[in-house]
Structures are given as structure tokens and as C-alpha cells.
């Protein structure tokens, strides 16, 4: 019984970490510039396809593809940010939604054209397959890897935002854009870098997600709902909030399926609705 609790916690946490990587970028850009980027998962999809291409066509090892997935997604996103998104920072949310949904459609069709509609397989190296059993709890190797990499990234993010000059500028820009501008902070530049960082993380998340959720052109739409759930429950612009929300949702989803399979599919939505009714601005949000 106790071991099953630990097992569920572990698996839920790993799943939550995946959600966290996919969502944290959106939370920051939405909180910082009020830009509703529904195409966020399209950047995740780019990362996924980069990994698949490098592995299957060029024979790269899995781990080596991950930084490339990050970089390609980040660069692509900045191109879009500089050419298109920035023109809409002052537009209404609805126009922003429409533009980015349009881009999602384009990305879905493009992926289908280039890669076909087929499920992309990813063949993990042997050391990431299988599992370890520690004190009766089975820990999947890939899940351990996922948790480790997410914790490292979270630590890096928090450290760089808390202790670097760039981090201070970003935080200032999130808190009060106008005042940040007044203080001579290059808000546009800070935003472009943050945007790239967020999309890069989504790209990394997309690459890491293939093994768990697969990859086909519908990825860009299918995981949008989960990402939005994490962002809203966590609170806009809050890394800690996204982390907590992703963990909470991952674990409650897993626990719900394990202990109450009859209502397993309802649980993630019930948790979200309940939390938002309790705290409309999200767990760590300052404003809704």
C-alpha cells in the first residue's frame, strides 16, 4: 500500500514535470507581455520533430538532439516574435488568439506535409529504458531522467531569474512594464530573450514528451488544453506557480486514475475548476 503511494507520487511527479516544461514558457510570456500565444505547443512540436529527424535520419544519439531541439524552437519563435507577434502586443486578446490559432493551423498542415500524419517513433537508448526497483517501488528509468532534467532546468531558471542582471530586468518587466521602461530597461530585448527561452523550453519539452505522449501533427492542438490548465492554475508569470500546478495536476491525475479509475478522466478538470474558483488568479498569481 505504502509502496503504491510512492509509486503514484513518483509517476505523477514525472508526468507533472513534462507538463511543466511544456507550459512554463507560456506562463512567463503571458504574464509578462499579456500576449496570448496559443501557438506555444507548435514550438513544442518543432522541438519534437527536430529530435525525430536528427535521430532517425542522421543517427544522432537522443541526448545530443535535446539541445538542438531547444535551440531550433527558440530561434523559430524569435523569428515569429520579431516579425509578427510584436505588432500585436497592443492588440486585443481576441486578435492575438486568432493570429496564433492561425499559426497553429499552418504548423499542423506543414508538419503533415513534411512528415506525414504518421506517429513518429523515438527509439530511446537502452539506459533510459526499463526500470529500477528501490524498496519495492518501481521507478521507470526515463521518468527518473525526466524528473532530473526538469529539476535541473527549474533550478537554472530560478537562479538566473533571481541572481542575474537579466533576471532582475525580466522580473521588473513582468511586475510593471511601464516602470521598467522608465528605468531604462530594454523591455523589448528582455521580452525577445524570454520568449525564446520559453519556446525553447517548450521545444525541449516536446522532444522529451515523444516517448510518453507520442508525436504527430495534432500535437500542436492536442496539448494546448493541458498547457493552458497548468498556466492558469499556476498563475500568470510565476515559475514557481507553474511548477506547483504541474506537480499538483500530474500527481492528482495519476492518483485519480489509480485510486478512482471511474472518475479518472474528470479529475484533472475538477481539480482545475476547483482551484480556480478558490483562487481565480492561480496558486501563485498576482492578478488574473
Amino acid at each position, binding site marked *: 500500500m505504502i509502496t503504491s503511494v510512492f509509486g503514484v507520487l513518483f509517476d505523477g511527479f514525472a508526468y507533472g514535470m513534462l507538463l511543466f516544461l511544456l507550459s512554463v514558457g507560456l506562463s512567463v510570456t503571458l504574464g509578462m507581455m499579456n500576449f496570448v500565444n496559443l501557438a506555444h505547443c507548435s514550438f513544442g512540436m518543432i522541438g519534437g520533430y527536430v529530435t525525430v529527424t536528427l535521430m532517425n535520419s542522421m543517427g544522432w544519439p537522443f541526448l545530443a538532439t535535446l539541445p538542438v531541439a531547444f535551440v531550433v524552437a527558440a530561434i523559430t519563435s524569435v523569428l515569429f516574435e520579431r516579425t509578427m507577434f510584436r505588432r500585436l502586443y497592443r492588440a486585443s486578446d481576441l486578435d492575438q488568439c486568432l493570429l496564433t490559432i*492561425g*499559426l497553429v493551423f499552418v504548423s499542423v498542415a*506543414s508538419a503533415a506535409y513534411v512528415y506525414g500524419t504518421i506517429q513518429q517513433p523515438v527509439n530511446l537508448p537502452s539506459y533510459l529504458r526499463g526500470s529500477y526497483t528501490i524498496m519495492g517501488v518501481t521507478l521507470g528509468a526515463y521518468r527518473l531522467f525526466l524528473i532530473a532534467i526538469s529539476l535541473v532546468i527549474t533550478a537554472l531558471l530560478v537562479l538566473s531569474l533571481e541572481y542575474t542582471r537579466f533576471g532582475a530586468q525580466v522580473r521588473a518587466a513582468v511586475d510593471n512594464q511601464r516602470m521598467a521602461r522608465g528605468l531604462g530597461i530594454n523591455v523589448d530585448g528582455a521580452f525577445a530573450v524570454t520568449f525564446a527561452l520559453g519556446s525553447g523550453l517548450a521545444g525541449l519539452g516536446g522532444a522529451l514528451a515523444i516517448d510518453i505522449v507520442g508525436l504527430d501533427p495534432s500535437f500542436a492542438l492536442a496539448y494546448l488544453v493541458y498547457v493552458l*490548465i497548468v498556466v492558469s492554475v499556476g498563475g500568470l508569470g510565476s515559475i514557481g506557480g507553474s511548477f506547483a500546478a504541474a506537480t499538483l495536476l500530474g500527481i492528482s491525475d495519476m492518483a485519480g486514475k489509480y485510486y478512482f479509475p471511474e472518475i479518472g*478522466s474528470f479529475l484533472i478538470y475538477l481539480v482545475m475548476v476547483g482551484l480556480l474558483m478558490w483562487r*481565480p488568479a492561480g496558486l501563485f498569481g498576482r492578478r488574473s
Partner: protein
Amino acid sequence: MTSTSAALAGPHEHLRAQDRWRAIEVVFWLATLLPFLVTPNYLSLASQVAITALFALSLDLILGYAGIVSLGHAAFFGFGAYAAGILSKHGWGEPLSGLLFAGIAAGLLGYLMSFIIARFRHLALIMITLGFGLLLLEAANSAGWLTGGADGLQGVRMWPLLGMFRFDLYGFTAYWYSLILLFLLFLVSRRLINSPFGLSLRGIRENSTRMRAIGAESRAHIRKIYTISAAMAGIAGGLLTQTTETVSLGVLDFQRSADILVILVLGGAGRLYGGLIGAIIFLVARDQFSGINPQYWYFPIGVLLVVVVLFLPGGILGGLAQITGSERFQRMVRPLMVWRGKSP
């Protein structure tokens, strides 16, 4: 657009003039009859456009007028669709009463939901509506005994409309039935948005804090319009069930909620005709693009959305209104407008 002459005629005359039917509106509604004559092979598409337009109109009432963004409006569409379907399956296939039933059922659900909706705004509101929509979808999937689950509800059979008109293969009955309902509910919406209640809704959209400060009953207004909108969406759903004699989980899908939002924003929210134009453009474009290539039609549709946002912010009608309202455009077209005997 100039108002000086009307202003002199007294404050109500100006508003009354805004409320009057314009020639172009009459032309628009007459044009909706064109499919009967010009494209009789496209009547089932036309009826789907009319139903989608009604659904978009229902969303416009809450989003375009009261500023309540919903990513779960399919809940009411789907609830109405299933209500009409289940009624028919259990032996009552009379269309008009079935539609009334669908509207009341969805309206009741909307009324219950409105007590929650009225308390939230912004992202929380969007996500709560989305959450409830998905919960309803899961519930419909689980309640296979009632809804038929993923296979869809089987055994929906409609009696002839008014006892005389069968729902035919060509979609003839389906289209005029949907069109009349769209028109009637459009009239209701038009009346509603020009009423004091409609004015208050726009106030809520524009500045809900200020509404509190002038003592407005904002929450009561929101509850009311949400209920009306839900009932209307339910009628649209019921229409879909009745004209196609099918219902499946697709009516409750997140995709349907997202699509209708895209359609409304594409056409222009808060303009009454926005949802109608959006539905026509989106569905006709989809039909044509997917006819050319059934696999990659998402691409041109996506490009269409991007282009509209970049060049016509505020949706097609919003963007056009800005362009036609601009001085430059007025100067440009004035010579062309001479025959009308007045400036546009």
C-alpha cells in the same frame, strides 16, 4: 457616420436612426435566399452555415456584448443537441417542440452555470468555462446508456416539419428551417442589443469596475444574458441534431468551442453580423479548400486567419469598419457614392 444633423433632432432621434434597418441589411438577408436559386446542390452546406451562424450569434451576445470570453460554449450547443436527440429517440420526433425543449434544457444549464460565471473574469473565467465544457463531454462519454457514448446517439428520427415537410436528402427543408430560425433569433438579438439591457451589457464589456460604481446590477445582467445565450446555443445544437438526425460527442468537443470562437473573432465580435459573416467565410473556405486538398486545407485557413488579424484587426467587419470609417477611404469613395445622393 456623421452625427451633427441627428444630434440637432434630439437625443433619441440619433439612437433611433441607429436602430433602423439599413438597405444593406435587407440585401444581406435577401442574399441568404440565393442558395435556393443559385446553388441548390449546396443547401446542406448552407444549412450548416446557418446553424453555425446561430451558434456564433449566441456566443457574440456574451463575448461581443458582455465581454465574457468562453472556451466552453459547445457545452450548451451539445446539451441542446443531445436534448433534441434523446427526445426524438424516445418517440417524440416533432421538430418545433423538440427545438423548444433543446433551448429550455440548454437555457436551464446556462442559468445554473451563470451563478458561477458571473463571479469570475479573465483567464480564470475562460478556463472555468473550458473545464465545465470538458467535464460535460466526459460525462456524456460515460453515460453511454443515455447518449450512446462514442458511437453517437442512434435512432434519432424526425417527423416532417409542421407535419408536411420531410427532411430531404438535398437539405432543402433543412436550410429554410435553419434559416428562418436564424433570422428569428437574429431579430431577437438585434432587439436585445438595442435595448437598455443591451446598453448595460456593453457597459459591462467596456468597464465592469465602473458599472459597479454607478450601482449597476452587473451580475444579474450577466446571469440573464448567459442564460439567453445558452438557450440560443442549445437551439442551434438542436437544429443540428434535427437536420442531420445524428448526435455524437463531437458536439461537445473542445474543438467546437474553439472553432466557434475563431469564427466569431474572424467575422468581428460585438457586431451582430460578425458571427454570421465569420460562419459563411470559414465554412465556405473550409469546404472549398478541403475540396481542393482534403489533407492540407488547414494551411490556407491558417493563413487566412493570420492575414485577417494583420490587415483587418477586430475581425473582418471590425477591420472593414475602420477602413471605411477612415478619412482617406471616404475621400476615395465619395465620387463613387454620388448616385446614392449622400455620403456613406
